[in-house]
């Protein structure tokens, strides 16, 4: 209770004013304290958390509406993919490497050039682009112009190509390679070098830049009637192949003419037609693309003219076939049969055709005019196929001279359910024709130290690596790159070192 007088000076405090002051009370003298005792009204504590509710307002929890944030519109369809797949082959800021030689028919056999970087010929870049030789993220974009190292494997390939074309014992030979190796060891660039050499030698080049594209169910497929087991043709993929062949081999193909009757294409294809025109038939009418491809293949592998059509025959050039990412062709595809059974990749006519080339041809070589099959495995995009691993080991054993009947010969684990078709596809008997080489596995490792030095000098001369190229620095980089793995060397060359 509030005391009625002041505790300090003992004077009486004013009482609380009544509601009705009594009229009778006489006015008193003002007391010392003028403050009313209970004048302060206790302020009600405001509840700040919950705002006061209005009448009949709902009490349930309401989510705040998100404010619309203005964002830039997404790019039009296809632009992102185009950006992702864009291939830039030149960096105008990089220094031009003086007296850099081109990879040509002369330089590809020159052993002195081992370890040096040779430029890809500028007029050939369009052909290489058309055949899908370049891939994004290969590091072409940091140099003034694309160039590749002449490593020992490249020079060996150049020598083989030279033999096949030149007049001699090796003329018209066929060599078949499966390129394997660790990640970033230059398998795809090896294919690119093969294509460059083939273009330089005026061969016809068939390329499959991405084997995966044929088996992931992204292109149309139709069963081919009259085949047992049923084969499936892929019209769009075949048309794309034909357009690659036309664009990259226009000069060679326009010099060759149709030299035999093609009964299935009787209405559109006539003898004497240029082979480019023949291929264009397939790209315009996709329904007959596979038939056109077969006709084109027949024409290119012809060794002699059909009777009575001699005037239309010119000798056919050798053929180079490259496939990248071979492992994708060794398993079931995403396609289905009408019974909804998965289709094996070997049942696709396209795949089947190129895999059958690995086997020695019946009576004459699989490429009768000579040429090369260079099929590369991929390590960054690789399905795990047990049968393929075994088949490659078997190939290597056969290459090393191990008898297939001996116990040392690698056999698939009987319980691992290995795909017999894959093992059979690579189980290639020794060819009877002397001109046809046996299928081999070539493993790409790292560069040697000398080659590494040449490669690092190329970086330094392009102004990208700002370091002295000495024996120590080369050796250091070679070691850091897991023994000269070229993709790792590229990273080290690009890396900017901070000066102390």
């Amino acid at each position: 209770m509030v005391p009625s007088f002041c505790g300090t000076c003992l004077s009486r405090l004013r009482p609380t004013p009544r509601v009705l002051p009594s009229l009778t009370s006489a006015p008193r003298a003002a007391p010392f304290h003028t403050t009313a005792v209970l004048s302060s009204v206790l302020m009600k504590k405001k509840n700040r958390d919950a705002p006061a509710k209005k009448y009949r307002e709902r009490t349930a929890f309401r989510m705040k509406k998100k404010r619309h944030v203005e964002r830039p519109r997404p790019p039009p369809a296809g632009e992102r993919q185009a950006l992702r797949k864009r291939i830039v082959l030149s960096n105008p800021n990089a220094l031009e490497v003086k007296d850099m030689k081109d990879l040509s028919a002369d330089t590809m056999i020159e052993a002195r050039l081992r370890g040096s970087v040779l430029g890809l010929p500028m007029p050939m870049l369009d052909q290489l682009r058309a055949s899908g030789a370049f891939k994004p993220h290969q590091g072409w974009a940091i140099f003034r112009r694309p160039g590749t190292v002449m490593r020992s494997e490249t020079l060996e390939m150049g020598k083989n190509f030279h033999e096949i074309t030149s007049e001699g014992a090796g003329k018209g030979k066929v060599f078949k390679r499966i390129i394997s190796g660790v990640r970033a060891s230059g398998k795809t660039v090896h294919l690119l070098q093969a294509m460059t050499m083939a273009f330089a030698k005026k061969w016809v080049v068939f390329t499959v830049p991405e084997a995966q594209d044929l088996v992931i169910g992204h292109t149309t497929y139709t069963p081919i009637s009259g085949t047992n087991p049923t084969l499936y043709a892929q019209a769009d993929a075949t048309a794309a192949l034909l357009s690659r062949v036309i664009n990259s081999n226009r000069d060679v193909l326009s010099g060759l003419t149709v030299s035999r009757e093609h009964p299935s294409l009787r209405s559109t294809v006539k003898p004497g037609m240029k082979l480019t025109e023949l291929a264009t038939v397939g790209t315009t009418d996709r329904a007959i693309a596979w038939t056109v491809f077969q006709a084109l293949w027949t024409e290119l592998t012809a060794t002699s003219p059909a009777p009575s059509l001699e005037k239309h025959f010119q000798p056919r050039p050798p053929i180079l076939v490259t496939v990248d990412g071979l492992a994708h062709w060794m398993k079931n595809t995403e396609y289905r049969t009408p019974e909804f059974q998965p289709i094996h990749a070997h049942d696709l006519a396209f795949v089947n055709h190129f895999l059958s080339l690995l086997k020695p041809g019946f009576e004459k070589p699989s490429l009768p005019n000579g040429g090369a099959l260079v099929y590369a495995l991929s390590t960054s995009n690789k399905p795990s196929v047990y049968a393929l691993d075994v088949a490659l080991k078997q190939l290597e054993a056969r290459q090393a001279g191990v008898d297939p009947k001996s116990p040392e010969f690698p056999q698939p684990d009987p319980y691992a359910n290995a795909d017999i078709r894959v093992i059979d596809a690579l189980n290639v008997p020794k060819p009877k024709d002397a001109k046809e080489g046996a299928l081999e596995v070539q493993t790409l490792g790292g560069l040697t130290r000398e080659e590494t030095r040449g490669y690092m000098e190329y970086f330094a001369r392009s102004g990208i690596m700002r370091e002295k190229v000495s024996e120590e620095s080369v050796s250091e980089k070679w070691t850091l790159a897991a023994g000269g793995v070229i993709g790792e060397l590229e990273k080290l060359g690009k890396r900017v070192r901070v000066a102390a």
Partner: protein
Amino acid sequence: MPPRLNLFTARKAVPIIRQPSIHNSVLNRPQIGLTCLNKRYNSSDPKSGNQNPKSSTPSGPTQDPLPHVSEEAAAMEKIMGEKKCDGTPASPELEQGTPVSEILQRDEEAKKHMPKVMQDQVRNSPPSGSRSFSTYTRFAQEMQKQNSAGASGSADPSVELVANMITDVSNQAAEKQGLKFPAPESLPASENFRERYDSVLKLFTNMIMKSGKLTRAQRNMDTILDHLRTAPAPQPNPRRRLISTPNYAALPLNPVQYLNVIVNSVAPLLKIKSYSGLAGGGRALAVPEPLRLPQRRRLAIKWIIDASQKRRDSKLANRVAQEIVAVAEGRSSVWDRREQLHKIAMGCRANIALVEIRSKTRR
């Protein structure tokens, strides 16, 4: 009244009188290896020289001389606190009198009338700072010992053995001047994995990072550097030159340096801090304050990233890279921002004085 004793001065003066013969005897000695002596027994600090005898470490019989009788008595009295009620000192030593030396010490007038013997002694005393005892005896003894040993050739054989061993080892060390493998040159800073990235690059990468995803930020930074490497070299803008860049065409060849130049060029020199109540009446006043280098860089990077967000490219890396090129060409709004900040700082630089005045009055 008891005499007040100055212990320090007394200690200095008294021994001079007590040990009169030492100093003179030094001069009469044969001068054998005097420089060597100084080197060996004087102060270890060559700078201080022979000035401070206390810093040297004397050793020998006179190392710690006992204080004078009266000093001792005074100290004793101080410790015991003994004093008679009439104020006279308790001990007889103090009561009976003060030694002459002490009187002379404090009384300049008395010094003049000192007996001649004492005056001569004072005049011949060594300068202040020299040792009160001789170190010559010991040295001379050792020299004598060595000489006699050398003359007779019958020294301790173990000493000779050790000496031989030392010379052998030193000879071997002299032969092995070169190392088996050449010593490494100073490694670049980036060879240390903690410092592998340039400081600006690291700061920039960290500032692009969102939600702690450093790897994504690094990938973006890689794209930015690739863009800088491949995009055409920037056109110099005469109004907005980049610092220390004579050759714009060479910038793309070293993208890290490119980035450094950009960030350092647009980095503001100061920030504006507002002090409330500085002008009186609660009004806030803007006061420019200098920034440290990392702060300056951080602000520049923040501005660049902010400005890049207005660009209409879907990829962050492209937006930032384009903004960097725009800065290089003087097109970016970052330059305006910097200029405006510097202009404001120029306008309110007078307020720095107010801050100083306030800080003084607060103290």
